């Protein structure tokens, strides 16, 4: 991979040609907000918070504003991550988000960092915590289930299972709930069961101690798709360790007895 030199906030920085700008900026420990970005999924460019100002010598002063998560670096790029225009843009974006999600702690916190304590617009009376980052739907796609999707257009867009019914393709892995930055996606766990998106799941329980591990559907799917023996999933991690300890112990004991002879 070719290495190129770019300028970031006045300093020369090295990067791989074609690498996404956000990765370079993060490596340089520059704080760039980005709510829709996560390593597990491809960059999406929806929140626009990671926007930075770019220019090149040959542009003679003309500037462009691009989302760094999707912008491939090239030699000669000149980047400013916190220019007045960029700050103003981020402030506006967070102001708009605060109008729609006035009670969401993550948005309140991020908006406050950019000086917005109260929104300049009308607060949505029924604002929920879904900031439409689409991380949940994208991780579900990445894992191969495609159980949920964004539904609808524009302001009415929301995340939902097909036809708002319990999603047939969901295996209850909880990746969506885990990746959700605001905690909007919730689930219930009760003993050997789990419920998410209105769908009920039975957990695999350890044959040795009864502790629940992952859902049966998830275990079946992983075993079939990834060629992992299905039996591996029947014992929990603690009991697996105990089994290994038992095996190693027997070998060690045999070694002892051999040495004694």
């Amino acid at each position, binding site marked *: 991979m070719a290495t190129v030199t770019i300028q970031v906030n006045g300093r020369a920085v090295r990067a791989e040609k074609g690498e996404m700008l956000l990765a370079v900026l993060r490596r340089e420990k520059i704080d760039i907000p980005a709510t829709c970005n996560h390593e597990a999924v491809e960059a*999406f*460019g*929806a*929140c*626009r918070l990671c*926007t930075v100002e770019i220019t090149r010598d040959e542009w003679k002063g003309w500037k462009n*504003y*691009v*989302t760094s998560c*999707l*912008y*491939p670096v090239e030699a000669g790029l000149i980047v400013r991550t916190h220019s007045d*225009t960029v700050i*103003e*843009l981020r402030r*506006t*974006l967070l102001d*708009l*988000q605060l*109008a*729609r999600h006035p009670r969401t702690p993550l948005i309140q916190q991020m908006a406050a960092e950019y000086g917005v304590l109260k929104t*300049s*617009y*009308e607060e949505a009376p029924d604002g929920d915590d879904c900031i*439409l980052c*689409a991380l949940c739907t994208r991780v579900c796609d990445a894992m191969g289930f495609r159980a949920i*999707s*964004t539904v*609808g*257009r*524009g*302001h*009415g*867009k929301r995340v939902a299972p097909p036809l708002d019914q319990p999603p047939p393709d969901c295996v209850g892995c909880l990746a969506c709930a885990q990746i959700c930055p605001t905690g909007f996606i919730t689930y219930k766990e009760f003993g050997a069961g789990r419920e998410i998106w209105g769908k009920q799941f039975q957990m695999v329980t350890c044959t040795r101690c009864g502790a629940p591990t992952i859902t049966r559907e998830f275990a079946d799917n992983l075993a079939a798709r990834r060629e992992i023996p299905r039996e591996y999933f029947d014992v929990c991690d603690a009991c697996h360790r105990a089994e290994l300890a038992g095996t190693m112990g027997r070998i060690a004991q045999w070694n002892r007895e051999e040495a004694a002879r």
Partner: protein
Amino acid sequence: MKITSPAQLSRLQTDLAAQDKKLGKKVMICCGPGCLANGATKLVQAFRSELEKKRIRDFRVEALKETGCHGFCEKGPLVVIEPQGTFYTRVTPADVPEIIEQSIRGNQTVERLLYRDQATGEPKTTYHEIDFYRKQTRIALRNLGKIDQYSIDEYIRVGGYQALAKVLTTMTPDQVITEVKASGLRGRGGAGFHTGRKWESCATADDWPHYVVCNGDEGDPGAFMDRSIMEGDPHSVLEGMIICAFAVKSKDGYIYVREEYPLAVQNLQRAITQARAYGLLGEGILGTEFSFDIKISRGAGAFVCGESSALMKSVAGEVGEPRAKYVRSVLKGLYDKPTVLNNVESYANIPVIIAKGGAWLAAIGTPKSTGTKAFSLVGKVRNTGLIEVPMGTTLREIIYGIGGGILHDRPFKAVQTGGPSGGCLPADKLDLPVDFDTLTDAYSMMGSGGMIVMDERTCVVDVAKYFLHFLVEESCGKCTPCREGLFQLHELANRISDGRGTEADLALMEKLSENIIIGSLCGLGKSGPNPFVSTIRYFREEYLAHIRDHKCPAGVCTALIRYDIVAEKCDGCMACIHACAVNAITGRKGKVHVINQDICTKCGACMAVCRRDAVEVA
């Protein structure tokens, strides 16, 4: 019967032309979108049945042609008798027997159906004499009104597919691209990117396969240029696409047609089937080694799917959301492969560029915007319809010269160009020559060719509200600045229209607009604030009137107006009482009528029916 050589095509063309000459008189019935809506189908039936009954000597049923849009939609349903060019307006089935007697059996004209000149009132016998037509240069629309829109033979008769034959047998892909570059053609969908350069980028991309896609989504409200071409001259689009496919080495093409155009889908599909039967699409076109086929992909009612990256996702069966275009779709487009996406009108220009040479087109228009542009001229103008003029024609020439000026001779207020992404231009911009760059410099844009004329009875705040509402509905919702920003911008515009706005709101809207433009992911968002930005630039006073004086000068914003009956003018005829849908008007016959402000919904029906001009809006 497959056509397997240019010579065979030429022979067919010669035969068809000869047969056509033998027809003598032809009756061209406009079956464009406007006239169809106005009853053209019944007109066709009436002509057919009358001609069956009458049995005119030397007149055969083949001489009856259902053509594409003639363009003068204001005066439809239109019937033209060729080769004379006799031009009949507002034709009804009841007029048909007389037209047949007078103009087909005989050589007379039916006076009462002729077009009357706006200024002099003088009747014009043929369309050649009418300014609306004389001042146009029809290239993309060249065949509309001249050929039967359902027949490939008609297209071939006027020279269709000759350009394709020339390309396949005497030119290399590079030469085709050179010719298109020489023409200076820029994308007619609105972005105005150089078509030749786009084709070159795709042709040289080393990633296969390559795709050719036609954008027939035409989402701008009020625009119907592409619809008319797709319905009225579908083969011109196909020919343009096949030539492009040869130039960029593609085997598969798609035409994306919006869901709301079922007739366009039908006519295009018929054309594709006909072209395949003639060996002009499919394997081994015109007997050469080149193969290319076209499929139609239908939209599902989303304006955002007219955006190129969203369109390509839609064609691939995915949700139509745009993506950041730091890597251009000409390199990573449909299925992430190099793709040429061009507009319907762009493709319609291609056969002419090949036939007459790129330099020929470059000589028309302006140096940086060559050729012509089709516009749908609508609104408060006398002559609404579909027109095509050389780039560089001024707004004044279009609106007054071709459009016949403002209805009822009211003062001109503004012209909205470029659809929701464009802007309003005021009277002092009337002498602006229309081309890509001048309109953009004036803070509007050409867009796909919508042109809406407004008079003093149009409120710019209301216009901004209307377009913002449209964009809020059509936003895909993926990115924050467009989804939330346009939503808030629309809410604020609503406040102003309702008389609840403040000057601080205006400042907030201006700042918000700047950020929406910088921050949005795609063109819809980036140009979304334009309805507000352009109107506040040129009509700030009107906004302030709403805010400071709580008045709507144009008399539109319902919260700020009232309808009143002027007692001195009212003659008690009760027409308005009958017209009022909510029974807000009281009064007996012969006595002055009164509007009850608590009930009145300000629909304006009373004003429309009053013959004494006794209803006023304030």
